[in-house]
Structures are given as C-alpha cells and as structure tokens.
C-alpha cells in the first residue's frame, strides 16, 4: 500500500513540475509551426536556440550564480566571433600557400581564398572535423583571454559602475571590429570557411545535431560546476558578499574565475554563430542581440537555473519567429498605416522583461535549493561519522 502511495506521489510531483508545463507549451507551439510552415522553420529555431542557450547559460553563470551585473555579454561573444572569423582561416590559408597575412580579410582577396579552403575542407571529413574543433578551441581560448583582460580593471568596481563599464567595453569592441578591416573585414563582412560544406545540401540538418550536442555538453558541464564546491562559493558570494568575505573566500579570485569561464563559453557561442551564418558582420554584433536578448531569456527562464534558461530561450525564440513569419497575417492593421510589424519584436522583448520583473520575479522555472550530495550518500557519510 505504501509503495502505491509513493508512486502516485512521485507521479503527482512530476505532473506539478513547472518544467513539464513549459515543455508542453513549447511542444505545442513547435507542432503548430511545423504544421503551418514545415520542417525548415523548426531547424532554424533549433539552431538559434542552441547558440543562444550557450550564450545565456554563460550569462547565467556570471549574473545568475555569481551576481555580477554582466551588461557586456556581447564583448565575449564578439571575441569568439572575431577569433573564428580571423584566425582559423588564416591558419588554413598559410598551410595551403594562399595569402594569409594582413590581406586575408580584404574583400577582394577574401572571396577568392575562402572558397579554396572550403574545397579542401569538403574533400575530407577528418579535416572538416579538425577544423570545427580548432574553431571551437580558438574561440574559447580568445574568449577566456578577453574575459580575463576585461575582469582586471572591472573586478574592483561596484554594482552599477561594473555593469556600465562592461556595456561600454562591449560597444567599443563592436566599433573596433567595424572600423579595423584587418580583423574581420570591417564594414565588408569577411567570409568564414565552412566545416559543414562536406554535407552539401544537407548542411542544415547536420548543423542542428552537432550544435545541440555541444550545447548539451556545456549544459552538463555547467550543471556539474554549479553543484560543486566552486558553485557553492559562487552562490555564497551572490547572496552575501560580506559573509563570504568573512568565511575566508577570496572574492576577487572567485569573481575572476566566474568571468573567465563565462566569457570562454560565450565566445564558443559566438564562434558557432559565425560558423552558422558563414560571415562575420561586426555591425550585427549589437548589444541588443547579444546582451539584452540573453538577459530576457535568462530572466524569463529563471535566474540561477540552467533548465529554466533553456526553456526561456526556447519559448522566446519561438515567439520571436512567430512575429516574423506571421507578421502580414496577424498584424495587417499595422501594415495598413505603414508600420512594419517587425518592431513588435522590441515590444515583445521589453514587455517580457517588465512582466517577468513585476509578476514573475523568479522566472518560469525558479532556482531550486540543491542538495550537495544524493540523500543515500549523505546517510552513508553520516553513518561513517557515527562509527
């Protein structure tokens, strides 16, 4: 009898979980989109979800777990994007004896060199895989370096000062990329060699699972990390800086570690984004797309909960896509007075932020108090202690 009760309780618990409710809504919306527009729109959504989930999870590590007001997420994303745009292509070109120095990113040279690299990559899957891994490693390394450099002056500033200086640094990076054409071509976007060329027309179908696997690996890594003693340090720092200091925590060191790991992951997200689009347009790396949207995703999903972040990214990306593809059907009244319904995307973003702050302060899937160890292991440890 008792086991029966236990099972039904467990079942009830599962049914009442917020994750399940949000998941059902997401599945319903996806099914609706699939029925009305076909599979391609689903694939586009999935790619965006994976890239932005990576970026938002890194933001969650810094802002959600450590409590740093990271308003310059775009800086690390730009570091990854520019590194993938500038470095791996040059390495390949120098091995192939093509122009690889300063002239690589000039538009007259770039559009001849990159197709040749692509031809080479398309000839062997091993080389494509190696190129992809090289891109990810370079993106992560440059992100970590940039994150460390930014953290040096920023780490000692207080809340608002810190957030605003990061915002300014992010904007400055964008302008440097837009004007300095050696880096990634400046105002004429440089092309990026495509490791997925080998699959030809099926490129899209392959990108989705590959990116998804990368996102899941990062998700598992962050989940492990935030449950480790290091993760508890982060939360201690967020909840009360004074008591963390009193407990002997080196605040500057922990903050720096969090910023460097976050920047590394965000840069990988930026690198994947560039590989997916195939070119680096510096002017497109705005703080709206890569700082404010991730903040909205994180706040909707739930600050300090990685599952929630995934759900938030999924839900908002679907809503965004729906505004874009149904703009003439649903918002014809706006078109009648000459207004482009695409601006509703900003309204949606702003409204989501405000509604979440006012009525749903903990997000869709709130942060849970996590046990440090599974219950049976705690019991074992306690039993050993008593002996």
């Amino acid at each position, binding site marked *: 009898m008792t086991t029966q009760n236990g099972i039904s309780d467990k079942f009830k618990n599962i049914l009442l979980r917020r994750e399940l409710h949000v998941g059902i809504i997401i599945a319903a919306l996806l099914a609706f989109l699939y029925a009305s527009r076909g599979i391609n729109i689903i694939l586009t959504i999935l790619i965006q979800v994976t890239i932005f989930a990576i970026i938002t999870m890194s933001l969650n590590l810094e*802002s959600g777990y450590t409590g740093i*007001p990271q308003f310059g997420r775009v800086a690390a994303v730009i570091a990854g994007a520019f590194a993938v745009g500038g470095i791996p292509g040059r390495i390949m070109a120098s091995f192939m004896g093509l122009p690889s120095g300063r002239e690589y990113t000039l538009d007259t040279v770039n559009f001849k060199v990159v197709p040749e690299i692509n031809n080479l990559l398309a000839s062997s899957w091993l080389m494509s895989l190696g190129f992809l891994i090289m891109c990810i490693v370079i993106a992560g390394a440059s992100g970590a370096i940039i994150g460390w450099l930014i953290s040096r*002056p920023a780490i000692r*500033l207080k*809340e*608002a*000062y810190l*957030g*605003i*200086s990061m*915002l*300014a*640094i992010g*904007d*400055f990076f964008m*302008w*440097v990329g*837009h*004007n*300095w054409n050696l880096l990634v071509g400046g105002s004429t976007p440089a092309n990026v060699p495509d490791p997925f060329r080998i699959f030809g027309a099926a490129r899209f179908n392959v990108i989705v699972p590959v990116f998804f696997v990368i996102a899941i690996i990062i998700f598992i890594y962050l989940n492990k990390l935030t449950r480790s003693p290091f993760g508890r340090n982060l939360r201690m720092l967020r909840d009360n800086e004074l008591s963390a200091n009193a407990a002997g925590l080196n605040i500057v060191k922990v903050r720096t570690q969090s910023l460097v790991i976050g920047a590394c992951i965000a840069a990988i997200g930026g690198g994947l984004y560039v590989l997916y689009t195939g070119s680096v347009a510096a002017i497109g790396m705005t703080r*709206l797309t890569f700082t*404010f949207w991730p*903040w909205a995703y994180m*706040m909707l999903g739930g600050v300090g909960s990685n599952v929630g972040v995934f759900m938030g990214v999924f839900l908002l990306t679907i809503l965004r896509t729906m505004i874009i593809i149904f703009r003439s059907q649903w918002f014809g009244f*706006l078109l009648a*007075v*000459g*207004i*482009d319904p695409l*601006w*509703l*995307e*900003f*309204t949606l*973003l*702003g*409204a*989501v*932020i*405000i509604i979440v*702050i*006012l009525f749903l*302060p903990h997000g869709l899937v709130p942060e849970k108090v996590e046990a440090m160890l599974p219950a049976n292991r705690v019991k074992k440890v306690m039993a050993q202690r008593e002996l």
Partner: protein
Amino acid sequence: MAPWLSSGLVYASGLALTAGSVTLLYIVTRTFNFAVASMATIGFYTVYTGVTLFGGLPYQYYPFAFIVGSITGFICYYGLNRPLLRRQAIETTLMMSTLGYDLILLSMIQMYADFLTHTYKIFPRRVTMSLFDFELFGDRAAAFILPVIAIGFLTILHIFLTKTKFGVAMRATIENPILAGASGINSDRVYLVSWIIGGGMAALGGSFMAMAMTGTPVMGMYTIPLMFAGAILGGLGSIYGGILGGLVIGLTEYAGVFLLSQQFGPWVLGYRMGIPLFIMAATLLVFPRGLSGIPLLKIIKNFAEQKRGARA
C-alpha cells in the same frame, strides 16, 4: 568659432543634460535609468515633428519636448518604478526594468517613424536638424543658444532645489531618505517629481544632441554609453557632477577627434567612441569616485594655508 568647437558645444550641452538626468534619478531612486536613451530620442522626434509639420524654428518646440519627456518619466514611475521601490528591489532589477521600458519606447519610436513616412511622406530616419537652424555672428545659432538654454535650465533647477520648500525636501530625501520620511516628507512625491524632471531633462538633452549629429530612431541607443560615462565620470553623487561629466565627455570627444584626425588622418573618426571611454577610465583610475570626488575645496584651503605659512 572653430567648427569642432561649435558642434562640440551643442553636443556637450545635450550630453550634460542627459547625464544630469541619469545622475538625478540614480541618487533619488537608486535606478540606473536605461530609458534615458529612448527619452532623448523622443525629445528629438517631438521637435522634429513640430518643425516639419508646423514650421518655425526648432527652439520654439523645446518646451513641448520637455513636456513629452516628463510624461514618459511619469508613466515609468507609476507603472514600473514605484512598485519595485516599494518591494525594495535590488539595483540590478531596477536597472533591468528601465531597460524593458526603454525597449518598448524604442519600438514605439520606430513605429512612429514608419507612421510619419507613410502618412506625411517625409523621411524621419536620417534627419539633419541643423538644416532648420539660422545663422548668428557668422556661425550656427545653436552654438550660442543651446548652452544658454542649458545654463538657464540649470539655474532654474538650482533655485528650485535650494530656495523652494519642496526643493529642500527633495534634497533632504536624497541625503537621508529614512530621516526625511520621519520628519514628515512625502518621499513618494519626491520620487515622482524627480522622474518628471529627469524625463524632461533627458528629452531636452536629446533634442539638443540632434542639432550636432544625425537624428535617427536609434540615436539614443548609440549614445547611451556616453550618457552613462558622463554620469559615472561625475561620480553619481550630485546632479552638478553629472552635468559636468557630460560636458567633459562631449567636449573631449569632439576636441579629441579633431586633434587626432589632424595628427593621424581621418581613420580616427571610426574610433571616436573610444576617446570619452578612455577619459572615463583614466579619471576613475585616479579619482575612483568621479569628478565630484575631487576634494577641490580642500586643495584650495591647503594652498591658501601654505601661502599664509610662507608669509608668516
């Protein structure tokens, strides 16, 4: 006047007002107001609508810009800031809430620009406001009129804060909210008035800045790091500090670009945003609490004492 100085003065007086607005709202409500960007753009579009649809000079529509900005500040306070202040939300939450408001305002500005294009067949997406200006002493009039308006506005604000009863109550709330509340000052009304003044100042500043740069719907979005840099340079301690910070940031940007492009060539123009940010970083390294943290009075006193000592 040299061309860089005249446009620099126009731009800097606009930036001074917006930075002052950011500082005012921060010291009164602890809110770092992101919506200052869209409020500034709204001020510009109010003036632009007046000039193109009803004619006349831009200057005569500045009162309307102030009023429209005040209304956006009023809505922001009642809809958003008041519930959060009552809940004693943390600084980051307050900041994010104004960001949400800013994005909604931005989408409305964009829709309004579309509406203007469709209905009146004008082009509000790339506007050179200085075309509507007139000439004074062989230079553009804005270079003389706008600093005068800004100084006049600040004088009125100063008189309001120091001579009127409500202004004194406001300063008391800024200094110590709990004590002010205990002595019977209605802090709710103080917050409301500061949002109204702050919104109006931001809109006025935006309409000033449009006289020196190209007016676009995203103009506030591009300049908001500079507005914040001005406020931070001022030290986020007093309104006058913020205004001074904005002035310094605006003038150094124009002067720096002028000097460096003469020295190194026109490619410097692309990195113009770096100059004020560099100055902000350098100032914060030397004076971590901004310009208002410089112990000016103490320095003068020391200097005077030294002189006296030398005489004795």
